[in-house]
């Protein structure tokens, strides 16, 4: 196995990699071929450091129609329909050019879904920024949000969810992960395997220009302080109008028959699409560079082959279909040109002006050699696990501070900039529930629920537990929507894998996701790894982001967080005790990210999720919310703010008040239900062996909370730990309008 290198040549290759290329070709590569290997064997395209570790992820499940290895995973939702799902990162381009970097991230993931023959129906974004007090961070954040809005709104795919978290360690290297869900008939799933040695290779979409050249390689390096000035030409420029035309034209082309295989020209452009499609099909391709539609004259072969110009797809088609397919794309104003043929001989041959300039086996390019990097537990890890802080005392002030903190505060000023209702599918939109719910009007009354989670603070404290908590939180959010999980896609954002401590955290996080998904029996259907997320200030914290999709049997029976009226009973479902270790409370109130995050007991978690799902599906609850950052106090405040209805609740406590109010833990939910539904809830809790306790009632225009104290239930005479008018909470919760308005 090749060892992790230290130095790279101009093409980005090490001496060892160079030797491996010579071995695979049986000769020295030409200068042009070396450049192609450089992008294809970049970390971004080649998954060199990650692919052995990723094998441990479970990738099989009863609903799976297409697992990892294609452009997106596909899951059966019954009735002849399926969903395609995938998440990708666009961190580096967004750091350099926030608007275009984020916009092309949206465009790229949409085309991955399109490559499966699916119509994109929803987007989710998981964003991580430095502190908003920093003006440069605000500029970056507003640019990234505008870029997502600019592309997603124009192509008409609703952005229905996602999260935004902040940490100083993302200051120089923001995280932009975008997930897309598509809908496809189960018998019409498209794939990227080239086949048939008389078939033609057709280039469709926008013309090829000089933008984004070497983008994949750029994404595989740390950012330096001159990144913004020097790397602009590595960032692609998106055109959502052309992207929208490409969606409609491609779906029309696929429906017309005659298309054998399809893939987006994304990272590493034409080189990647051609070599991967040929390698997957076990065939070769002969391409004529002179036929490629260009935006400007005088482009060199390496520029044409490595350009990451957006809104382009590569098709393998039956020869007799060429005329009809070209007519479809031309009607939509897009280029459609036959640029080559599929060949039986397993070689990717590129010719220019009658001369063969590249001749390489497709697998040699597409299958980068894997590494076994050194891994070592960071020396600082365990030292963070000791927490010694006193109870902050003023719980009311703590609650307001938590609600106003960027991780907890309402993201409405951001979500308002995204069109979340186009396509008339959005039943539960951003912020209204723990997961977004879209109806599938093709299959009434079914729907799908979607959510993302991933916490760098928790993963920095314990990457294994942090990753398990992310999977657990996604599953909890889906349960609140009444959904049964179908599959997971993930984006694994880390620093340089060449650092043994970083690589150790990567392995731990993957193990955490793998174990959690196995325990919940959810397949990981695809995903993406983004390494080298480092700035001069150092690496980002380990940031595995998990996105999960689930099936809702009846969209009229789903969950929302808002209290719905006065006099409902408020119930706490407790699958695990609250703890302040690693909590938002410690971070926001005590200014320390410390403690070992709690581990998830998945036996218990599964039982609790089953109960929550049953209560939602049975229509027993009027509101449901999982307890996340800020614990029960924040969850209750959010339900009250969303519903415009106050609450009085006495929370069980085994000791400290701050732990009872603000402690976090998996498998914890707050529900509200009509008085006469309480019995039904109790029966379900008993059936699933879940602990639940009635803690109070909705009503009024204040939020009044207290911890019961170590001796048990508080009497009515006990003072409230929190007694605040709803409008104060509302104001605090909308603190981000100043950043994003």
């Amino acid at each position: 196995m090749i060892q992790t290198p230290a130095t790279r040549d101009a093409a980005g290759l090490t001496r060892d990699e160079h030797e491996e290329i010579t071995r695979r070709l049986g000769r020295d590569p030409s200068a042009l071929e070396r450049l192609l290997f450089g992008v294809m064997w970049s970390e971004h395209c080649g998954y060199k450091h990650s692919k052995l570790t990723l094998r441990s992820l479970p990738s099989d499940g009863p609903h799976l129609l297409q697992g990892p290895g294609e452009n997106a995973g596909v899951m059966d939702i019954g009735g002849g329909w399926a969903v395609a799902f995938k998440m990708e990162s666009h961190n580096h381009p967004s750091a350099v050019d926030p608007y275009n970097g984020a916009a092309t991230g949206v465009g790229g993931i949409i085309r991955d879904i399109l490559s499966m023959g699916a119509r994109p129906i929803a987007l989710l974004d998981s964003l991580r920024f430095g502190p908003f007090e920093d003006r440069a961070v605000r500029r970056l954040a507003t640019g990234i949000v505008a870029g997502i809005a600019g592309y997603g709104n124009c192509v008409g795919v609703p952005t229905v969810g996602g999260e935004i978290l902040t940490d100083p360690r993302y200051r120089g290297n923001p995280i932009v992960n975008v997930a897309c869900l598509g809908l496809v008939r189960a018998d019409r799933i498209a794939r990227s395997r080239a086949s048939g040695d008389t078939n033609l290779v057709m280039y469709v979409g926008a013309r090829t220009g000089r933008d984004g050249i070497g983008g994949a390689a750029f994404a595989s390096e740390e950012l330096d302080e001159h990144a913004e000035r020097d790397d602009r030409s590595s960032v692609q420029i998106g055109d959502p109008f052309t992207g929208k035309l490409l969606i409609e034209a491609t779906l029309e082309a696929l429906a017309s028959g005659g298309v054998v295989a399809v893939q987006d020209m994304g990272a590493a452009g034409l080189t990647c699409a051609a070599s991967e499609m040929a390698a997957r099909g076990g065939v070769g391709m002969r391409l004529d560079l002179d036929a490629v539609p260009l935006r400007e004259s005088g482009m060199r072969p390496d520029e044409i082959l490595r350009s990451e110009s957006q809104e382009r797809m590569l098709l393998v088609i039956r020869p007799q279909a060429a005329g009809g397919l070209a007519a479809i794309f031309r009607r939509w104003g897009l280029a459609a040109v036959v640029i080559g043929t599929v060949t039986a001989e397993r070689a990717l041959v590129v010719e220019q002006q009658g001369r063969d300039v590249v001749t390489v086996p497709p697998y040699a390019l597409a299958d980068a050699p894997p590494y076994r990097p050194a891994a070592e537990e960071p020396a600082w890890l365990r030292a963070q696990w000791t927490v010694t802080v006193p109870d902050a005392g003023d719980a009311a002030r703590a609650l307001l501070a938590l609600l106003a903190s960027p991780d907890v505060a309402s993201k409405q000023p951001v979500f308002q900039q995204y069109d979340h209702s186009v396509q008339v599918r959005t039943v539960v939109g951003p912020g209204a529930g723990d997961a977004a719910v879209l109806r599938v009007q093709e299959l009434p009354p079914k729907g799908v629920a979607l959510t993302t989670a991933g916490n760098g603070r928790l993963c920095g404290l314990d990457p294994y537990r942090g990753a398990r908590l992310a999977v657990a939180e996604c599953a909890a959010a889906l349960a609140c929507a009444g959904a049964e999980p179908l599959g997971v896609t993930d984006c694994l954002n880390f620093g340089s894998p060449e650092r043994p401590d970083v690589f150790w955290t990567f392995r731990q996080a993957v193990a955490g996701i793998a174990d959690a998904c196995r325990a919940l029996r959810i397949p990981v259907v695809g995903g993406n790894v983004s390494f080298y997320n480092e700035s001069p200030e150092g690496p980002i914290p380990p940031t595995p982001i998990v996105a999960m999709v689930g099936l809702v049997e009846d969209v009229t029976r789903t969950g929302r967080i808002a209290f719905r009226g006065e006099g409902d009973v408020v119930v706490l479902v407790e699958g695990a005790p609250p703890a302040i270790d690693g909590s938002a409370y410690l971070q926001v109130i005590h200014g320390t990210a410390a403690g070992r995050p709690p581990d998830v007991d998945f036996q218990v978690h599964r039982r609790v999720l089953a109960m929550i799902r049953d209560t939602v599906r049975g229509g027993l609850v009027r509101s449901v919310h999982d307890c996340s950052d800020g614990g029960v106090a924040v969850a209750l405040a959010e339900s009250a703010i969303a519903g415009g209805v106050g609450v009085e609740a006495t929370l069980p406590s085994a000791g400290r008040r701050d732990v009872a109010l603000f402690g976090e833990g998996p498998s914890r939910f707050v529900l509200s239900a009509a008085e006469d539904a309480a019995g039904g809830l109790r029966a379900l809790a008993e059936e699933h062996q879940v602990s639940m306790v009635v803690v109070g009632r909705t009503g009024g225009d204040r939020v009044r909370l207290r911890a019961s104290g170590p001796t048990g239930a508080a009497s009515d005479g006990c003072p409230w730990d929190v007694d605040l008018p709803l409008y104060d909470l509302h104001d605090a919760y909308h603190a981000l309008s100043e950043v994003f308005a």
Partner: protein
Amino acid sequence: MRFGVVVFPGSNCDRDCLHVLRSVLGQDADELWSGEASTSGADVLILPGGFAYGDYLRAGAVAATAPIMSAVRAFAARGGPVLGICNGFQVLLEAGLLPGAMLRNRSLRFCCTTVFLRVESARTPFTRGLREGQVLRMPIAHGEGSYYAPAALAERLGQEERVVFRYCDAQGRLREGANPNGSLHHIAGVSSASGNVVGMMPHPERASEALLGSTDGRLLFESVLAYLAGTRPDNDLVARR
């Protein structure tokens, strides 16, 4: 009754309109490709939302010159009902079929939210079934929706009852906070002089099913259906099918 939904390159609410017209209202509805200069026998035309031609140059500016627009103009001149929604409204403004212009939202940002509208005129085919003063709830989703007209024009529109909708609060009041984009006099929709051409920024097709939060938008489509049923003898319709 036959609806024609105009599809420009870049339209993205065309399928939503077709869904509501066909599946919710049970009507015949066809796509009309903007490259063809024909309304193909439609009884009502809908110009849907989206980003026609990418909204390059100005929202709706390129689309206003598409071949179908001459057919839309002739249809409107014959008194046929035309509804422009969001980007469709912008196209009608650019085509000169409706008065005024659109500016970027006062916030300079795209805004997707749910708003209240007050019906100002029940004179149009799309609002005949509504009461003046009635408050409707519908989503908006646009970046350039701040309606503008010079003072003289604005005054004339008011006098001629051509302001069809205004943004308001839940009680129908024109409060400052109830103007999501800074439109002049809270104007959310206007009509042509004869009332048969209506443009509006809010999306009635996104408010036509209870599952999605509101059915108020359906009232506009039902209104135009009733209007057509009342103005055209049945035998005429049968003959034209």
